[in-house]
């Protein structure tokens, strides 16, 4: 740590003092102090734990108050092996505090910790490592190193977490160990538990933040674990990944104008759109090589987004800065809701008199930045109330803010100027002074039009005492003396009179005014100027004396004066550029948002620069974990499915420790990236799209949660848990049941558009389970429109479908006219690509558009297939291993016979029954509508209500989801 030298100075200072010197009570009662400590020593030496505890408590209280207790070290350290855990812990507290000062004695305790490292109790192992690594004694560095290495392979993730924490401790104690420590970091980075992730990334950031290469292989895992990591770890990981992404991915805003179109349309390129225009556009875009986001870049954006809902402001800020630095411009808007950054939230920044000053100043800054032609009058009105505030610093800041608005927005410049001029008659001098300064800057922009204001200000010089304001007025008069030819010499006369009593900045401006007047109107002011220059010549301040000498040489022609004299007028009365009124917060954008360095606008120790985007993307395959995990081809749906399947194969998904499972699937809805970035998307559109993404992953999440629970329980008691489990499962999914389970015999209707939201138009749909004749790869969706309004609905049709890549839609023919009170039924086809992603589109009438979405239960993605018993067995044989999912279940009370089972299964999924010889087995077969993959389901019943469900399907996501749905249906 680079800063450690600075800080050891301080520490050294305190350590070198006599020990008793710390105690403010020392001196007179110095000896009694020692007596008291003798008591404590006695107590510590006793055999009674209660006495030892009492003594330790008193010692810790002393430490807490900052009193020195170092003389007790020998007495305390003896108790390091005390059986009483609280005594032991307090001894640890003491040791860590004083070990540095009493190195030799501290070494006595080391063997205890070494024993502790081998303890069967993980808490003891962990705390032994914590203390050992906190003892800042260089001699034990090798012991620490060994302990850390061992702990990094400990069975307990808690101990491994402690090892991660110990790494920066050792690094700051002995930077020489860096290489070895990096090895440990590398090992721990590969850890799959959420508990370790945050801590090891913290260690990475402290020890080797530049070793980006260590992250590659762990990148996807970190993204996926993120949501389950504790809040503090989330912040550290997100900040690190922000930097990582800036080195590995391309700037999504590199070609902004192009992006807006391409992201919209390039992804619909696979749609079978008939539209010629679109096709043409797509091809031209392809020629221009549109930017395509790396899927891993997208993964990061997607997996951090839900964290915007965190209760922890630091997490929210971390995500916000990540979006700010990494997201395409169009998507940055999502952070606005959580942060309230943009215009619609203008009023959230209105200031209350009770706000702390720093909040007031920040809000003012935000309001100023948000000001534009449209809202300026509202904002100005708001600013005016601030001018009457009792907080004078804030009033001054408000006046400056008005000035900035006036410079930025030409339309209101005159209004602001007039307002500020009125403030000149305010009784508060500070208000007046600040106004003068701002007016001066504003006038500089267009002085010709405002000679009356300059006159007004010239009059003010008699009353205003604030030096800065006086100086500003004098400068103004001098600069625009031609506009006030009569007043200017008179002001100089007054100033000459008061010269000796003025502040230095005012004196300098008086000299300045005198010089300018001398150059333009020497007849009237020659004597005055000389008088002023003479006063200045004998001033106490050498700056003023210097200035006087310099000006005299410049303006008064003598034989000695050089060539410059000729140009004096040009020098003094040159046209000066109008000042830019700048935000005090500018200049800091090169710092990572939300960092300490950004806040202070100065680089803090340990700050890692946010690198610029690379020109060309580094090899994305470095992040591939498995060999077969090829670089996914983004535009094709098939690759998407591949990825899904791989996810299921990922080792940590079924990690035996059961705490590492990603809560969100790595790639759910990956194809949605383009549509999500559309900036023109209206609110409800994006909402429905989101819910589509989330529902799917949410199901997976629950799936997993069950898994986790299950695993945990199996660890404890393996038998007798089955019943409970299914009860739990049943409980968790109650909400789903309502949606997905069709009442036997009838087909479930789903609501597409509620009567109220549809303004009288109610739309329901169902999966009719009929083949969709125009395209056999599509699922038939029957839609029923009911017109409850009292007018006709015309031109009902679909527009603007927003689909995952690969998905297709076959619209129904436009319904020309639908009379009041009548219902019309149509059928449309959707190729869901065998996924439960929703199809989003707009339902349009002649007057209105509604955003709607259709999301299929997994059971509706298949169509019945007829198989013989032999064929079934043969096909099942081909779909073993990873493609087979087995679940045990307890049949619900009503599942009394085969008939009910068949009814429930077929209600859940569109499958047909396969004949079967055994009455203990029911078999069903079907194939997925889109790609025709076989789906085989077997339910084997056992005595006493138990049963086993087997699903064989090449598409494992479909299989997993189907198992879940059927389990639900059967265990009811």
């Amino acid at each position, binding site marked *: 740590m680079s800063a450690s030298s600075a800080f050891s100075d301080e520490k050294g200072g305190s350590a070198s003092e006599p020990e008793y010197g710390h105690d403010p009570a020392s001196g007179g009662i110095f000896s009694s102090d020692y007596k008291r400590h003798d008591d404590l020593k006695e107590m510590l030496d006793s055999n009674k734990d209660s006495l030892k505890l009492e003594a330790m408590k008193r010692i810790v209280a002393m430490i807490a108050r900052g009193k020195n207790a170092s003389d007790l070290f020998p007495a305390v350290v003896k108790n390091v092996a005390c059986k009483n855990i609280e005594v032991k812990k307090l001894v640890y507290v003491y040791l860590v505090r004083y070990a540095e000062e009493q190195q030799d004695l501290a070494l006595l305790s080391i063997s205890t910790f070494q024993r502790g490292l081998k303890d069967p109790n993980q808490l003891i192992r962990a705390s032994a490592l914590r203390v050992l690594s906190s003892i800042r004694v260089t001699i034990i560095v090798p012991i620490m190193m060994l302990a850390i290495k061992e702990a990094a392979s400990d069975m307990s993730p808690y101990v491994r977490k402690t090892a991660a924490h110990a790494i920066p401790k050792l690094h700051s104690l002995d930077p020489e160990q860096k290489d070895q420590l990096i090895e440990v970091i590398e090992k721990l980075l590969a850890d799959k538990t959420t508990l370790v992730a945050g801590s090891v990334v913290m260690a990475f950031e402290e020890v080797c933040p530049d070793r980006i290469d260590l992250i590659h292989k762990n990148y996807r895992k970190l993204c996926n674990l993120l949501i389950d990591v504790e809040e503090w770890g989330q912040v550290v990981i997100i900040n690190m990944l922000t930097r990582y992404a800036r080195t590995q991915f391309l700037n999504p805003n590199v070609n902004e104008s192009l992006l807006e179109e391409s992201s919209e349309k390039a992804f619909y390129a696979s749609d079978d759109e008939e539209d010629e225009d679109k096709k043409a556009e797509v091809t031209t875009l392809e020629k221009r090589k549109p930017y395509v986001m790396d899927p891993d870049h997208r993964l990061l954006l997607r997996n951090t987004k839900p964290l915007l809902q965190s209760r922890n402001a630091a997490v929210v800020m971390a995500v916000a800065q990540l979006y700010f630095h990494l997201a395409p411009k169009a998507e940055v808007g999502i952070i606005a809701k959580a942060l309230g950054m943009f215009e619609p939230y203008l009023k959230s920044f209105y200031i209350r008199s009770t706000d*702390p000053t720093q909040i007031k100043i920040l809000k003012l800054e935000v309001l100023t930045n948000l000001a534009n032609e449209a809202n300026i009058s509202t904002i100005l009105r708001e600013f005016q109330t601030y001018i009457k505030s009792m907080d004078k610093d804030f009033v001054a800041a408000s006046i400056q803010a008005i000035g900035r608005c006036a410079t930025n927005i030409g339309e209101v410049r005159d209004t602001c100027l007039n307002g500020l001029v009125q403030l000149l008659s305010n009784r508060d001098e500070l208000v007046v002074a600040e106004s003068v300064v701002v007016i001066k800057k504003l006038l500089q922009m267009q002085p010709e039009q405002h000679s009356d204001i300059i006159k007004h200000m010239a009059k003010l010089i008699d009353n205003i005492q604030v030096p800065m304001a006086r100086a500003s007025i004098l400068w103004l008069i001098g600069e625009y003396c031609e506009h006030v030819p009569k007043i200017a010499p008179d002001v100089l006369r007054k100033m000459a009179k008061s010269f000796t009593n003025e502040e230095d900045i005012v004196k300098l401006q008086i000299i300045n005014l005198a010089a300018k007047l001398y150059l333009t109107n020497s007849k009237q002011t020659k004597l005055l100027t000389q008088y002023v220059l003479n006063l200045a010549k004998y001033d106490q301040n050498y700056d003023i004396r210097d200035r006087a000498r310099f000006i005299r040489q410049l303006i008064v022609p003598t034989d000695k004066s050089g060539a410059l004299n000729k140009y004096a007028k040009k020098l003094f009365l040159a046209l000066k550029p109008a000042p830019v009124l700048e935000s005090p917060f500018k200049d800091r954008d090169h710092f990572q948002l939300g960092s300490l360095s950004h806040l202070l606008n100065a680089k803090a120790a340990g700050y890692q620069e946010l690198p610029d985007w690379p020109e060309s993307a580094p090899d994305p395959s470095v992040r591939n974990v498995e060999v077969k995990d090829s670089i996914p081809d983004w535009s094709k749906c098939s690759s998407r499915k591949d990825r899904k399947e791989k996810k299921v194969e990922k080792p940590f998904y079924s990690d035996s420790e059961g705490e590492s499972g990603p809560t969100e699937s790595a790639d759910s809805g990956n194809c949605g990236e383009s549509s999500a970035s559309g900036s023109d998307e209206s609110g409800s559109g994006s909402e429905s799209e989101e819910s589509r993404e989330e529902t799917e992953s949410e199901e997976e999440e629950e799936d997993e949660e069950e898994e986790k629970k299950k695993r945990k329980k199996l660890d404890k008691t393996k038998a007798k848990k089955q019943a409970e489990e299914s009860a739990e499962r049943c409980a968790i999914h109650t909400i789903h049941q309502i949606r997905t389970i069709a009442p036997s015999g009838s087909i479930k209707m789903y609501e597409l558009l509620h009567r109220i939201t549809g303004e009288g138009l109610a739309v329901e749909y169902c999966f009719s389970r009929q083949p969709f004749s125009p395209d056999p790869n599509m699922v038939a969706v029957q839609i029923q429109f009911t017109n409850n309004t009292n007018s006709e609905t015309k031109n009902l049709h679909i527009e603007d479908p927003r689909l995952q890549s690969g998905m297709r839609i076959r619209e129904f023919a436009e319904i020309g006219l639908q009379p009041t009170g009548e219902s019309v039924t149509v059928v449309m086809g959707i190729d869901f690509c065998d996924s439960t992603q929703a199809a989003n589109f707009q339902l349009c009438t002649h007057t209105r558009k509604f955003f709607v979405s259709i999301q299929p239960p997994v059971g509706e993605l298949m169509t019945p297939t007829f198989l013989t018993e032999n064929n079934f067995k043969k096909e099942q044989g081909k779909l073993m291993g990873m493609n087979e999912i087995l679940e045990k279940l307890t049949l619900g009370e009503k599942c009394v016979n085969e008939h009910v089972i068949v009814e429930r299964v077929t209600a859940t999924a569109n499958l047909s029954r396969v004949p079967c010889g055994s009455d203990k087995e029911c078999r069903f077969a079907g194939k997925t509508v889109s790609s025709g993959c076989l789906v085989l389901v077997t339910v084997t019943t056992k005595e006493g209500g138990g049963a086993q469900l087997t699903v064989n399907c090449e598409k494992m996501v479909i299989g997993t989801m189907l198992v879940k749905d059927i389990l639900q249906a059967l265990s009811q």
Partner: protein
Amino acid sequence: MIHSLFLINNAGDLFLEKHWKSVISRSVCDYFFEAREKAVEPDNVPPVIRTPHHYLINIYREKIFFVSVIQTEVPPLFVIEFLHRVAETFQDYFGECSETTIKDNVVIVYELLEEMLDNGFPLATESNILKELIRPPTILRSMVNTITGSSNVGETLPTGQLSNIPWRRAGVKYTNNEAYFDVVEEIDAILDKSGTTVFAEIQGVIDACVKLSGMPDLTLSFMNPRLLDDVSFHPCVRYKRWESERVISFIPPDGNFQLMSYHISAQNLVAIPIYVKQNISFFETGSSGRLDIAVGPKQTMGKTVECLVVTVHMPKVVLSANLSATQGTYNYDPVTKILLWDIGKLNPQKLPNLKGSLSLQSGAPKPEENPSLNIDLKIQQLAISGLKVNRLDMYGEKYKPFKGVKYVTKAGKFQQRLSEWLLVHTEV
């Protein structure tokens, strides 16, 4: 990350220090004291103070400054959030977070701080985990401990640490299983002189006290979830279920916790429960002024407004107030220039009124700055946004819990401006 922590009271006494790395001399706090002096009001102390070798990041809570010492780059919010978590933990353990309770429980405080950070990086901040490591003090326990010599410190790793639900400990058992939820809404508003809303929004939280045995899985649903705009959740809440179904599904921590907080933005119409008619004027001559404030109900949804307090920050030149109140008591503090009128319950039949004269510093000109008026109030059994809990379902356990929901509305930062927009007339 976080090097050291100093606790400093309002009088400037440093009463606790804790170091997670090498010891940093408490003299570093001199920079803080300097800033504290400059700020006048404790709230105005800058949260981040730069010193030659360190950065001091501080929060002010319960009349205590929590001053942390930082040496290297760290997101300031990270530290600020952590300091708040420390204060909340103290509150959770000792019932309140005050100088007295911290001093009385200094050993437990120290043990807690030791567990919450390791080498300056948060280790255990979940209340449920901490409570297994260090048991909160109770009178009974401390008596038993004194007699038996047993300790307050847990000997095994808290169950939550290793599970994927770290916020809940395993093996929770209650004889009475109960779950209570408090929906607390605060109205943040700025009203102009005439009482028209300039800006209003609602900040809501749902505080929970859940004492349920085993591993209950709860689902809380609302009658009108669409009201909720910007929501933040306790980590136990499943984001996805909220996104897709607008229900709060969670396995709760044991005990008290904040389930969620939400924000109902200015875009929705926010009901303002009371109106304040006020007239505060200062005379050009005579060094005096007049004050007349009347309060009445506006949109109270038929509920009673309680704990009504009106606070007026007077200009500096106001020396004293000679007023009479038809209800409640008033007090003018000539040092802080705060007029406080404690009204109590608002009776719609007999509206409270406060009027009388103000005396100003003699010879001082009529003050130009305007007083501001802050309102505090409470309405029981009402969530002003109209938010209603629909039902609470429990899965995963077989017993029948006792459930309860309470609503309360309070005034948050509720301010009426007394200024008029006279200065600049802008064309709209």
